[in-house]
């Protein structure tokens, strides 16, 4: 492998010649500890901390106070310019420790935060690494610290609910007893609200909507105050908090976040939240407000908390939420074709769309002539189905709206689960075709069983998709006889892959840790499987947030669009490459060599091309994108 000699530099830094994954982790921890101790000695946490505490404490006070804080915070930020990242991390963790401790008194709060301060050193990412000489964007320097702790926030809550692991994540309303007077409620890092133009609450991520009537009215007052001046409020920054507003006719959406995500990302999330509401009620809900401006919408959304909270949860783990593309379950070409063929057979007869899905990934989908399905609709539809437990119990027939297809009207969805993960959605415009759809499903099921599609799906779930360790050596030099099947080289390449690790240290070749490839024509993306060192769900979430930021900066209306970006910070080297055909997002070891990283990206693109008929759904459907 040509890159071995080059990557040996990172190897020596890692101090880990072993290929064993556990050792790699330990060595990484060791580095982090070292870096963290550097951090500790280079900052004075107590002073900065106190300033930040005020911001957190009074986050939801009167507007005037917000403005005061804005000034205070700006002042303090200016003073400690260099330490910004560190401060953020301390503060975020402070928030976390409080939300875990829930309802502890003021004294306790400060003591626990001091304790966190000290112990945090073990976990903290260093704000600077010896190698962080690369480009650091406007948020680059502060990106590391806060993200970790933000991860803690969500995961901590999940643990509070007695479940661990993101896949066992508990859906539904969390902390329903909170309201805007609760300390814990105020400390939440990311709030989402829906309210009506008359100020009536519709949805809140945390707390009981009815108890938040006053808070809702305040949000409404801010929005209408600005609107009365002939303007529109998009974003308010108050210290670490961003308040993002989105007005959709009579429905207002607000996100209050201290996660440092870009405005465009948060706005996109509000758009999806609105879309999810449309999935449930259609846009004709606006008519209710025309008839009665004070219309109370909460009862119409009864029982849908799980749908919204699962969507909000997916903002931090599902790249489809910001890429506006869908992903396919990796499958042998023949398998996917078999699935596509039977769906195609049924699609003609009154079925508008047929989707065969495994979790949030598409196995195959077809549409009736000239009907096309937007990736966001796929996301919202699959989120709706997966978060509604009743679909798993028995076959169902339910009205559903695809906002990008037709936001005004209901379609009817026949939903059937073949197994725990795999389900079929048949969409039709006809409200009385249940038995027809049921018959279609029975035919589809028979074919899927006969052609082993369902068992292949289960195997793919176990095997996963693209593993960076399997990134082929220079594609040009590869013997033509080697098939490019995803599954096949796996066992064969396993041992060389491991050997490569020995030289590289961690991750894939040349310090490659992870990548996402988005095909622009197909509106699909493929994401490599996570592997060391991006193992934990909070590391994964942090990486997705970094990609999200990268995506936003590449698509920035003001300064963009850009073609390439190379960004190095204390956590990663991030490389983004946008062409007419694809977008590639890749994360490398922070010590990775730039020239090698670019070379590796080329190899990734070749690799994706080689296996595209296994990872993408190609031309199987008469879509007119």
């Amino acid at each position, binding site marked *: 492998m040509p890159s071995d000699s080059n990557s040996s530099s990172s190897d020596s830094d890692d101090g880990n010649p072993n290929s064993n994954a556990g050792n790699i982790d330990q060595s990484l921890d060791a580095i982090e500890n070292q870096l963290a101790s550097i951090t500790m000695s280079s900052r004075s946490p107590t002073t900065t901390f106190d300033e930040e505490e005020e911001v957190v404490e009074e986050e939801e006070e009167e507007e005037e106070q917000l403005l005061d804080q804005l000034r205070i915070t700006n002042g303090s930020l200016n003073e400690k310019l260099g330490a910004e990242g560190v401060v953020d991390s301390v503060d975020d963790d402070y928030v976390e420790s409080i939300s875990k401790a829930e309802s502890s008194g003021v004294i306790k709060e400060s003591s626990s935060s001091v304790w966190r301060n000290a112990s945090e050193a073990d976990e903290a990412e260093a704000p600077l690494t010896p190698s962080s000489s690369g480009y650091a964007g406007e948020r680059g320097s502060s990106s590391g610290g806060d993200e970790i702790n933000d991860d803690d926030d969500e995961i901590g809550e999940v643990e509070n609910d007695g479940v661990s692991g993101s896949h066992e994540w508990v859906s539904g309303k969390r902390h329903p007893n909170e309201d805007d007077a609760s300390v814990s409620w105020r400390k939440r890092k990311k709030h989402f609200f829906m309210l009506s133009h008359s100020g009536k609450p519709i949805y809140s991520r945390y707390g009981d909507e009815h108890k938040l009537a006053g808070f809702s009215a305040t949000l409404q007052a801010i929005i209408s105050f600005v609107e009365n001046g002939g303007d529109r409020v998009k974003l308010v920054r108050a210290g670490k908090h961003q308040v993002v507003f989105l007005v959709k006719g009579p429905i207002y959406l607000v996100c209050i976040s201290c996660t440092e995500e870009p405005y465009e990302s948060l706005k996109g999330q509000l758009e999806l939240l609105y879309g999810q509401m449309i999935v449930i009620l259609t846009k004709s809900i606006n008519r209710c407000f025309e008839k009665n401006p004070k219309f109370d919408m909460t009862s119409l959304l009864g029982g849908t908390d799980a749908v919204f909270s699962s969507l909000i949860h997916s903002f931090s783990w599902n790249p489809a939420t910001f890429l506006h593309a869908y992903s396919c379950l990796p499958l042998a070409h023949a398998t996917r074709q078999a699935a596509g063929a039977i769906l195609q057979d049924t699609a003609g007869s009154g079925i508008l769309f047929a989707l065969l899905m495994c979790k949030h990934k598409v196995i195959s989908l077809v549409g009736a002539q000239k009907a096309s399905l937007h990736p966001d609709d796929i996301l919202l539809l699959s989120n709706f189905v997966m978060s509604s437990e009743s679909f798993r119990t028995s076959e169902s027939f339910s009205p559903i709206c695809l906002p990008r297809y037709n936001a005004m009207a209901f379609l009817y969805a026949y939903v059937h689960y073949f197994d725990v993960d795999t389900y079929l959605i048949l969409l039709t415009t006809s409200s009385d075709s249940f*038995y027809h759809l049921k018959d279609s499903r029975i035919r589809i099921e028979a074919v899927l069983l006969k052609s082993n599609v369902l068992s292949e799906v289960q195997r793919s779930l176990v095997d996963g998709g693209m593993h960076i360790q399997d990134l082929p050596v220079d594609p040009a030099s590869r013997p033509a006889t080697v098939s490019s099947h995803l599954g096949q080289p796996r066992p064969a390449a396993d041992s060389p892959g491991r050997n490569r690790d020995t030289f590289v240290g961690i991750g894939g070749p040349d310090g490659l840790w992870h990548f996402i490839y988005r095909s622009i024509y197909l509106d699909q993306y493929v994401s490599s499987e996570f592997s060391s060192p991006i193992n934990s769900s909070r590391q994964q979430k942090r990486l997705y947030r970094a990609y999200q930021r990268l995506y936003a900066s590449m698509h920035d209306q003001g300064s963009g669009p850009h073609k390439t970006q190379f960004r190095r910070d204390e956590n990663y080297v991030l490389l983004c490459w946008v062409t007419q055909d694809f977008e590639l997002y890749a994360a490398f070891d922070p010590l990775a060599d730039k020239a090698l990283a670019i070379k590796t990206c080329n190899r990734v693109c070749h690799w994706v091309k080689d296996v595209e008929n296994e990872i993408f759904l190609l031309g199987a459907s008469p879509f007119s994108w």
Partner: protein
Amino acid sequence: MGCSASVPEKNTTGRLGGLNPDNGGANDTKNLRVKLVLLGDSGVGKSCIVLRFVRGQFDPTSKVTVGASFLCQTIALQDSTTVKFEIWDTAGQERYAALAPLYYRGAAVAVVVYDITSPESFAKAQYWVKELQKHGSPDIVMALVGNKADLHEKREVSVQDGIDYAEKNGMFFIETSAKTADNINQLFEEIAKRLPRPSTS
């Protein structure tokens, strides 16, 4: 699941008439097929009743029904007739109320469920009875079911209120508990007995 295999062979031609497998539901004198719809406020336990009847299960975690779920169960009566129930378990949420006709249209049986601990759900049940009287099939068999009978210490709707309302409206009344399985099979057996039989030729 359920009855998936048995449906397509029969009556593929008479299938176009909406959510009804065929007209009226009766096939022959010994084997009846009936469309049954469950209606009632959200959270009264419609899905629990169905799952207890069809699968013998009870899941205390509440799973909100979306749209309507479709399940089948066949029971044998003492006179050696079998009745296959094709059950539409509808969502109780307000947003689905306007879509209820989709599910109850052509139903031979309507089971209106309320929660004996919730007077609101009893009021909602009365709403559904009126709606069915107005828009349902004229010869529909209606049952009024007070569910959660195991929670008698929290009871807020008396048995007599249920009986009185059912009698006034020509309904069959029963109190059930999906949790303890109390009266669940009796409910469906009793419905089966009341079904109009096709006249023997």
